[in-house]
């Protein structure tokens, strides 16, 4: 067993930068997750939908953000995760994954639970926003 991460309200763990996103990244996620909507790999279909190049699946970006979260806090301590999709992520984009500790609840007789505010951003603009609860150790 590993103890939960020791943290405090306001902590910003080291962010992670991924990209530029390639068509290969998107295809690899399609293979892993099973989303074969042609919008994500066929330039002609992307163009028909009004995009000048294929866009990543929202679940790809959500997966990147979740991986940053659980690499930081431990997947065994994750209790909930919510993501909202706010803008498309395109081939060629660089995405930054980050979050901070918004609040900490310390219920009696139960482990301390932190609420983490999450964002995947491109040049500062959010493409996915999220929120998670994770078991932590209070500082």
């Amino acid at each position, binding site marked *: *067993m590993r103890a939960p991460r020791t943290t405090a309200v306001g902590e910003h763990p080291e962010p992670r930068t991924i990209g530029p996103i390639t068509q290969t990244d998107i295809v690899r996620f399609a293979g892993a997750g099973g*989303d074969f909507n042609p919008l994500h790999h066929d330039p002609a279909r992307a163009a028909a*939908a009004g995009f000048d190049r294929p866009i990543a699946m929202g679940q790809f970006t959500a997966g990147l953000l979740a*991986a940053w979260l659980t690499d930081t806090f431990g*997947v*065994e301590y994750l209790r909930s995760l*919510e993501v909202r999709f706010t803008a498309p992520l395109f081939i060629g984009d660089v995405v930054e994954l980050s979050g901070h500790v918004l609040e900490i609840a310390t219920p009696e007789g139960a482990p301390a639970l932190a609420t983490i505010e999450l964002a995947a951003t491109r040049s500062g603009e959010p493409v996915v926003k999220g929120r998670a609860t994770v078991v932590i150790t209070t500082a």
Partner: protein
Amino acid sequence: MTESRPETGLVGTVIDTLTLDIECGKIAEFARATHALDPVHRDRAAAGDRGLDAIAATATHVVAAGHQRDPAAVLEVLGLDLTRVVVGSTSWEYSRPVVAGMSLTARRVVLADEMRTGGRSGAMRLITLETTFTEADGDVVVRQREVLIERGTT
């Protein structure tokens, strides 16, 4: 003013039920595709050191149920126009980590279906789908909710 009107007809409809077997190969693929670096997703000893019975799946691994689903059929059941549909949000609640060797029954149900009018974006239909991922003993391991948004035609 935003008004919400429930479209009760579809609430409770079971969209599909499938079996999701959690296995190491798919966990590794998903971990690589999402840049998950924690060895708990690849190495049995690392997972054991963390108190887990087997290699842990990544947090959003259950979306791999998509391999067994037919997106067109779902849209037909829900009466949605694909060209106007986007996924607004997805959430997951975990009762314990998903690990290799689990065989989960994924049952997807319409939880809510409502029309919203008067908002900035005009009329929208919001459908909430809930998938419960359950072990053979009946324990729900993961509960996933996704909100589909169908924009109005005007």
